[in-house]
């Protein structure tokens, strides 16, 4: 591993750890409704964002906190947003399902399942017409692949050759419904194939695998155009939301959590002698501090004044 590659790998590990710790701190809060967390799915967010440049944009579904952090959204302003405070990236109005920070390349979350997909194609068409070589990635869950919006958009993106990377984070659960009971295709990437898209399915629990696949897809879109379809098979460690009932048994959950993308990456870096015990501890400490600072910032920020209810309506 070269020095740069090692630095990049540690940076990606750091981001996965930040997402896990940030969401864990958020999960402890009971003062702002339910939250949609992504423990177990960090490699998908971080691997995907490693392929995106500053001019690119990412759109996601409602499970957006990990991807937003991976895209570089300020954790302090993100925490404020999630707790409904006016120093949030959207003045505390968007919350868990609708975060956006275009300047960070995070065009936004949209919590209608599948609802972000056609919008992402519109952003991709804008990028194509502007001709600045930027691409758009849209991240959605397996639940969204049953929605007509995906199928209509795959067709349009294909005929218009949009610079759009469809990324399905297939955690195989749509709230309580299992992917095998709800979705007919053998592989969800087959949906991309049926519209003539270059399509792949990869292990979403392995950061290096997702990173390589996302970077390769982005290079292809930049070199010869899009769209492309990437399916990342992942595990959701927790229930659908912080207030949703868990449908899996304790034994099942223990088995699922046995395969952790962060632990896997840590082991890999240790084996390559890229990280030492002292550095691991320093990393964990640094992340704990950043998360504490983020929530302290959020706690110090006020709620909006009720009169704000009528501002910026339209």
């Amino acid at each position: 591993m070269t020095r740069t590659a090692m630095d990049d790998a540690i940076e990606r590990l750091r981001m996965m750890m930040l997402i896990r710790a940030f969401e864990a701190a958020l999960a402890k809060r009971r003062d702002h409704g339910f939250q949609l967390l992504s423990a177990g799915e960090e490699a998908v967010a971080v691997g995907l964002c490693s392929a995106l440049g500053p001019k690119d944009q990412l759109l996601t579904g409602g499970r957006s906190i990990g991807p937003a952090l991976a895209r570089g959204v300020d954790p302090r302003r993100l925490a404020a947003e999630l707790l409904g405070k006016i120093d949030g990236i959207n003045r505390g109005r968007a919350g868990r399902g609708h975060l956006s920070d275009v300047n960070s390349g995070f065009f936004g979350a949209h919590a209608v399942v599948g609802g972000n997909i056609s919008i992402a194609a519109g952003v991709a068409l804008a990028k194509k017409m502007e001709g600045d070589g930027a691409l758009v990635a849209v991240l959605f869950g397996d639940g969204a692949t049953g929605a007509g919006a995906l199928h209509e958009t795959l067709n349009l993106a294909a005929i218009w050759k949009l610079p759009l990377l469809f990324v399905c984070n297939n955690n195989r659960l749509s709230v309580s419904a299992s992917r095998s009971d709800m979705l007919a295709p053998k592989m969800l990437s087959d949906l991309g194939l049926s519209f003539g898209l270059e399509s792949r399915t990869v292990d979403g629990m392995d950061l290096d695998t997702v990173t390589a696949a996302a970077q390769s897809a982005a290079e292809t879109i930049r070199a010869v155009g899009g769209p492309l379809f990437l399916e990342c098979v992942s595990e959701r460690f927790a229930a659908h939301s912080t207030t949703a009932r868990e449908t899996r048994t304790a034994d099942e959950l223990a088995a699922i959590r046995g395969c952790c993308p962060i632990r896997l990456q840590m082991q890999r870096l240790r084996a390559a002698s890229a990280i030492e015990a002292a550095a691991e501890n320093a990393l964990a400490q640094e992340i704990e501090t950043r998360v504490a600072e983020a929530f302290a910032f959020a706690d110090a920020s006020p709620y909006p004044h009720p009169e704000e209810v009528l501002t910026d309506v339209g």
Partner: protein
Amino acid sequence: MSADPAPAVKKMFFREAIARAMREEMTRNPRVLILGQDVGAFGGSYREFDGLFAAFGAERVRDTPVAEAATVGIGVGLAAAGFRPLVSITYMDFIMLGFDPLINYGAKLRYKTGGKMTAPIVVKTTAGALGQGVAHSQCLEAWLMSVPGIKVVAPSTPGDAYGLMKTALRADGPVVYIDHKRLFPIPGEVPLEETAIPFGHAIVRRAGSDVTITTHSFMVRVALDAAKKLEENGISCEVIDLRSLAPLDIETVTASVARTGALLTLEEGQATCGVGVEVAAQIQERHAPLRWARVGAQRAPVSSNPVLEAACVPDASRVVQAVRKLLGK
């Protein structure tokens, strides 16, 4: 030399007025583009985009497959990313397929980003009954009026079609622009000078003193026909063309009602939770209790059967009857 000024207006059909507004705005702003079914070389289902494909090319006059949901979604995405798309939906009934991106995303974008982003999209669609049946005839403007963040306009003349389209293509957020099949064969005067008609301004089409009739789109013509008949019976109707339903120019209506003391609301869509109900409620909030009656479609789908269609949607004789009953004359 003649002292007569050159004519300041030209007779045009709706489709010509719309095409002119599009051409001017597409020339003025390279970020204006059109998406929809049959909008390209075909020139639009009603020929309202005639000549634009040749002038601006396939990038900016973009044919789409039969995919209203994704087309509206792509439209709001383009708008959020800095373009000004007009998405053409051939029949207003099909706008339902695009409600998710339009209402759940486009209408909320400015609010949910604290004013940092907007979705300046125009969804242009055609409403109204003309023999095409239960899913090609509906007037759904009242549904849209209830959505915060969406502007809704419904011109009744080619001049307004032109001027309101100009404003729609410069507006900050989603606009639903509704024309009407029965208005297409009727020419009207359009100013030669480039003009935009601001939203939120109703216009008095006929002055009167006994009753105020508020309406929009094709029903303006029905109201004017009824007013003519009622005049023969000594009843003087003031006919107000709302033109812009959201924002609604309630001041013009209030001023009229203050003089006439009676309000008849008329629309082609359902009277239940209709445009007229909203107009009447807002008037009641500003004015002493007044005599009000509403006329809208019968509470039934609009069939393609000519007898049933005519029985369903309002006509001048129903308006005449309703006004007489309201005034007790």
